[in-house]
C-alpha cells in the first residue's frame, strides 16, 4: 500500500487499537520508581504497518507489553487514567480470562531473541499446535496438519520434518519464522513485533522483513513494528511514532516524518546515522540539534577516504588461520575452521574495515592479532617481527602498541574498579609515568580528551551510560599510546545517537594521534563511514578487499553484492525516482 493511501485509510476511520493517556511506572527498589511511559496517545489503524521508533529507555517495549497485559505484575503499575481501547473495550479493565482469549488470537506478539522465546524442551510442532488448540479448538491431528501448513507459509523448508525439531536445532532466522507462525496461527488482527530482527544477521533480516510485510498484506492485519533502526522503518512503515524517554516526540505518516520532520529529536535521529551515500567529516549528534538548530548540520564538508597504494604499511597479516576442536566419538575430534587463510595489510593512519555476518570469523581475527586467541597458523608482521611467534615475555612491549576496544560496554570495565584504577593500571604495568601523581594527571588529561569530567576518576562504571563507558574503554587504550587500535564491534551495542558521538571521538583521535584502526563490524553503513579500505569475510575466508567507496559502488563478489543489497535503504528507496 503506498504511503499516501495509508493516510487516506486512516482518515476514513476504523481505528483498530487506540491508546490514550497511557502511563506506566516501575518500582526499582524500596525508594525509587521509574516512569517508563509518560502519558502517550496514538492509534493503530487497520490493515497497516505502524512503526514505533526509539532508542533504549524510550518506553517502546513497555508500551507493547502493556497492550497485551504482559507487564510483570510484581513491580509494574499502569496509571489509573490510562486506556487501551480495542473494539470498544478498555483492555486495562477487562478480566484476565477475557484477556487470555485475546492474546494469541486477536492480538499476537513476537519478540527479539527467538532462541530464548521458544521453550527449549518442546518441539516446534508442539508449541505451534498448542496455540491452535487453545484458541481454535482443533484436535491433535487437525492442529498438526495446520501447523505444517503454517510452517510452509512462513517459508520453512521441509515443514513435515521440521515439525518434530527442537528450537536449538534451527537457525536464528528459522526460529523467528516459527515464532511468526505461532503468532499468525489464529489469524490475529494485530501483530506486535518487538525488535524481531535486531538479533539477526542483515541478510536474514531482509528475509524476515519481507515475510512480515507479505503476511501483513495477504491477511490484511495490522503490524505494530518496534525498532530502533530508522532505515528499517523507512522501508516498511505506513505510519511512524517516535518516542524518547517515555514520551512521544512526533508521530505521523511515514512520508511526513522522513521528508519534513518537525521535532528536533526526530531530525537528529534521521541525520546522525551514517548514510551510505554521504560521508560528512563529522556525524551530527543529538546535541547539535537540540542546542544549535538544524542549520549547523547540513553543510558539513565531506571526507575523502581510500588508499592510494603508496602509504606506509604498519601491520601485515599473512595466512591467518584458527581452528577450534570438539570431541567426536570415542577418540575423534571435529575441527571447526573459524578463520582460514586471511591476509591483509594496514596502512599507517588509515582504517581497515572488517565486515561480515555472525560466524564470519571477524572477531576471531581481531582477537588473534591481540594474541588473546592462539592462532593455529599464520604470521602477523609488526615492526619487522612476527608478533604471533614471540614468547609472552618478548611480547610484553608490543602489548601497548596494539590495543583493542571491545563490544560490550557493560562488561569490558571491571565493575569493582574505579575509573581511576582502570586508567592507571596499564600505566603501572608498562611503567608509564614516573609516579602515582604523574599517572593520575595523565589520566585526567585523557578523561578530558574523551569528553568526560575529571571527577569521573573516583566513580565506578555502573554510574555511567553505555556510551560513556566506551569512552572510558577508549581512554584506557590511550593510556598506552598505541599505534594500532582494534575496534571490535565497539559501537554495535550503542544507541544511534550515542554511536555518532563515539564515532566522532574515534575519528578525532585518529586525526590527532595518527593511529591506524582495524574497525570490525557487521554494520555496513558504519564501516563505510569509518573505513578507508574494507575487507569482507564470510565463513572465515576473505571474500573481497577494496577501497570502501569502490566496494559499495562496485562490488565484485556475489556475497558482497548480496550483503549490500540486504541493507535497508530507508525511506528514499520507496519514493519513486524523479
Amino acid at each position: 500500500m503506498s504511503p499516501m493511501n495509508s493516510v487516506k485509510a486512516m482518515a476514513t476511520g476504523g481505528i483498530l487499537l487506540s491508546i490514550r493517556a497511557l502511563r506506566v511506572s516501575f518500582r526499582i527498589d524500596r525508594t525509587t520508581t521509574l516512569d517508563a511511559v509518560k502519558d502517550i496517545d496514538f492509534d493503530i489503524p487497520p490493515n497497516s504497518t505502524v512503526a514505533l521508533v526509539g532508542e533504549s529507555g524510550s518506553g517502546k517495549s513497555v508500551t507493547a507489553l502493556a497492550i497485551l497485559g504482559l507487564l510483570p505484575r510484581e513491580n509494574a503499575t499502569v496509571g489509573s487514567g490510562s486506556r487501551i481501547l480495542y473494539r470498544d473495550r478498555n483492555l486495562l479493565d477487562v478480566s484476565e480470562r477475557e484477556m487470555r482469549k485475546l492474546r494469541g488470537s486477536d492480538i499476537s506478539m513476537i519478540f527479539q531473541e527467538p532462541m530464548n522465546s521458544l521453550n527449549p524442551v518442546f518441539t516446534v510442532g508442539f508449541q505451534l499446535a498448542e496455540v491452535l488448540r487453545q484458541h481454535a479448538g482443533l484436535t491433535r491431528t487437525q492442529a498438526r496438519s495446520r501447523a505444517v501448513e503454517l510452517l510452509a507459509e512462513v517459508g520453512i523448508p521441509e515443514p513435515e520434518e521440521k515439525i518434530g525439531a527442537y528450537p536449538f536445532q534451527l537457525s536464528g532466522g528459522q526460529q523467528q519464522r516459527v515464532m511468526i507462525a505461532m503468532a499468525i496461527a489464529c489469524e490475529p488482527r494485530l501483530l506486535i513485533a518487538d525488535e524481531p530482527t535486531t538479533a539477526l544477521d542483515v541478510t536474514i533480516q531482509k528475509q524476515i522483513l519481507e515475510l512480515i510485510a507479505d503476511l501483513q498484506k495477504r491477511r490484511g492485519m495490522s503490524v505494530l513494528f518496534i525498532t530502533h533502526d530508522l532505515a528499517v522503518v523507512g522501508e516498511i512503515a505506513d505510519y511512524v511514532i517516535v518516542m524518547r524517554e517515555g514520551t512521544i516526540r512526533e508521530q505521523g505518516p511515514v512520508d511526513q516524518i522522513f521528508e519534513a520532520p518537525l521535532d528536533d529529536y526526530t531530525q537528529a535521529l534521521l541525520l546522525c546515522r551514517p548514510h551510505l551515500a554521504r560521508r560528512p567529516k563529522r556525524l551530527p549528534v543529538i546535541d547539535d540539534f537540540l542546542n544549535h538548530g538544524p542549520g549547523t548540520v547540513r553543510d558539513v564538508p565531506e571526507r575523502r577516504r581510500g588508499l592510494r597504494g603508496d602509504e606506509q604499511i604498519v601491520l601485515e597479516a599473512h595466512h591467518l588461520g584458527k581452528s577450534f576442536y570438539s570431541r567426536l566419538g570415542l577418540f575423534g575430534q571435529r575441527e571447526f575452521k573459524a578463520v582460514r587463510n586471511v591476509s591483509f595489510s594496514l596502512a599507517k593512519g588509515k582504517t581497515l574495515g572488517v565486515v561480515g555476518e555472525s560466524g564470519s570469523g571477524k572477531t576471531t581475527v581481531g582477537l588473534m592479532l591481540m594474541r588473546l586467541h592462539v592462532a593455529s597458523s599464520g604470521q602477523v608482521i609488526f615492526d619487522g617481527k612476527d608478533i604471533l611467534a614471540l614468547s609472552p615475555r618478548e611480547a610484553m612491549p608490543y602489548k601497548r602498541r596494539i590495543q583493542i576496544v571491545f563490544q560490550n560496554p557493560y562488561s569490558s570495565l571491571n565493575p569493582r574498579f574505579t575509573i581511576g584504577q582502570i586508567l592507571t593500571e596499564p600505566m603501572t604495568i608498562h611503567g608509564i609515568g614516573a609516579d602515582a601523581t604523574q599517572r593520575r594527571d595523565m589520566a585526567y588529561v585523557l578523561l578530558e580528551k574523551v569528553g568526560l569530567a575529571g571527577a569521573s576518576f573516583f566513580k565506578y562504571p555502573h554510574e555511567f551510560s553505555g556510551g560513556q563507558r566506551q569512552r572510558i574503554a577508549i581512554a584506557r587504550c590511550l593510556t598506552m599510546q598505541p599505534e594500532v587500535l582494534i575496534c571490535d564491534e565497539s559501537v554495535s551495542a550503542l544507541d544511534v545517537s550515542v554511536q555518532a558521538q563515539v564515532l566522532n571521538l574515534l575519528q578525532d583521535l585518529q586525526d590527532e594521534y595518527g593511529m591506524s584502526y582495524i574497525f570490525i563490524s557487521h554494520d555496513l553503513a558504519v564501516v563505510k563511514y569509518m573505513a578507508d579500505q574494507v575487507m569482507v569475510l564470510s565463513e572465515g575466508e576473505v571474500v573481497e578487499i577494496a577501497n570502501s567507496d569502490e566496494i559499495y559502488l562496485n562490488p565484485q563478489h556475489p556475497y558482497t553484492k548480496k550483503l549490500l543489497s540486504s541493507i535497508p535503504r530507508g525511506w528514499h528507496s520507496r519514493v519513486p525516482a524523479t
Partner: protein
Amino acid sequence: MNPNHLARSQVRAESPGLWVLAWRRFCYDRVGLISFDIVLFFVALMAASATGLIASDWSIEVGVSHAPPTFMGPADASARITTGAAPPESAMSARETEGRNSDGVDPLAEILAEIRGANRSGARDVAIVDPLAEVLAQIRAGSSVESATDVRAPTLIFGGDKWGRDVLKKAIKGTETSMFVGLAAATLAALLGTVFGALAGYYGGWIDDFFNWFYSVFTSIPYLLLILAIAAVLNQKGTMTVVLILSLTGWTGIFRLIRAEYMKHKIREYVQAAEALGASDMRRMFVHILPNVSHVVLVQLSLHVVLFIKSEVVLSFLGFGVGVDTVSWGSMLNEAQSELLIGNWWQLAAATLAMAMLVTAFGLLTDALRDALDPKLK
C-alpha cells in the same frame, strides 16, 4: 587554572562502590537488619563466654538435680536428689544414654531414683558403696568449689540438668562452642574452596582435571558418612578436631560454585582487556576477578556456618564431637532425651531455642545478604 584540578579539589565525590550500594540496599531490609543484630548479639555472647565474662562457672552444680525453671516453681522433693556429687563426666555417658535409648522406656527408672535418693541422703549407712568416694573427697577438698555440702537452689532461671548445673549457662556455653566451630570451620572451608575453585576455574586444563578428580572423590562419599569415618579413625575428640573434620569435608560446595564463577568471569571482556594490557595471571585471578566473586563467597560462608553448626550438634550428640569438658547443644540434647521421659523439658527447650534463634537469624541474614548483593526482582 586547569579545570581538572578544580574538579579534583571540589568534587571528591563520595562515589558509592558496589559494597556501599549493597549495604544501603541491605539497610532497607528490616528482616535482614534484625537478623544481623541477632547474629551480632550471639557473636557478642560467644566472645563474652569465651573470655570468661559470663557462664564460666557453668560446670558448678548450683541447683538441685533436675531443678525446674524458676517460673515453674520448685519440684516435689520425693524423687529428687538434693545433695551429692556428680559422677565424673566420662566417655561412657554417651554410650550409657545410648544403651538406655535403644532399650526404650526404662520401667525401673522411678524405682531406681528412689533407691538412689534414699541411699544418698543417708550419707554413710548405704548398701551401695562408692569405691571412689574417698578419692573424690580428696579432689573436692583440693578445689575451691565445695559441692558436697553446699545448699542447692531449688530452681534455676531456666532449670537445671541431671547434676543441677544451670541450663541457661550451659546454653550460653553451647553457643560459644557452636559459633566458634561454625565460624572457624566455615572460614577454613571457604578459604580452601575459594583457592581451589579459583585455580581450577581460571587455569582449566589439567589443573582443573586434578581438582575435579579431587572433588569427585570427596563427593562420592556422602557427607555424614565421611565425617563419621574420619571421626572413627581419629578417635579423638575436641573442638579443633571437629573444626578440621568439618572444613576438610565441607569445602566441596564452595569449590564448585567458585569454580563456575571463575569460568564465567574468565571469558568476560574486562578480564580479556586486562590480559590485553599485559596483566599477569595472578593479577587477573586475584585483583580483577576475586572482588567480583567475593559476594558469592560471603553468602556461601554464611550458609556453611549454618550447615556446620548443625553438623557439630549432631556429632556432639553422637559423642564424636567436642570434648567431654566442653558443652555443646548436642550434648545437651543427648541428656534431654532421657530427661523427657521423666517430664523435664527445659534442657531440650533451652538448647532448641538457642539453636533455632541463631540458625534462623543466620538463615534470614543469608537471604538478606543475597538480595542485597545481587538484587533481582523477586
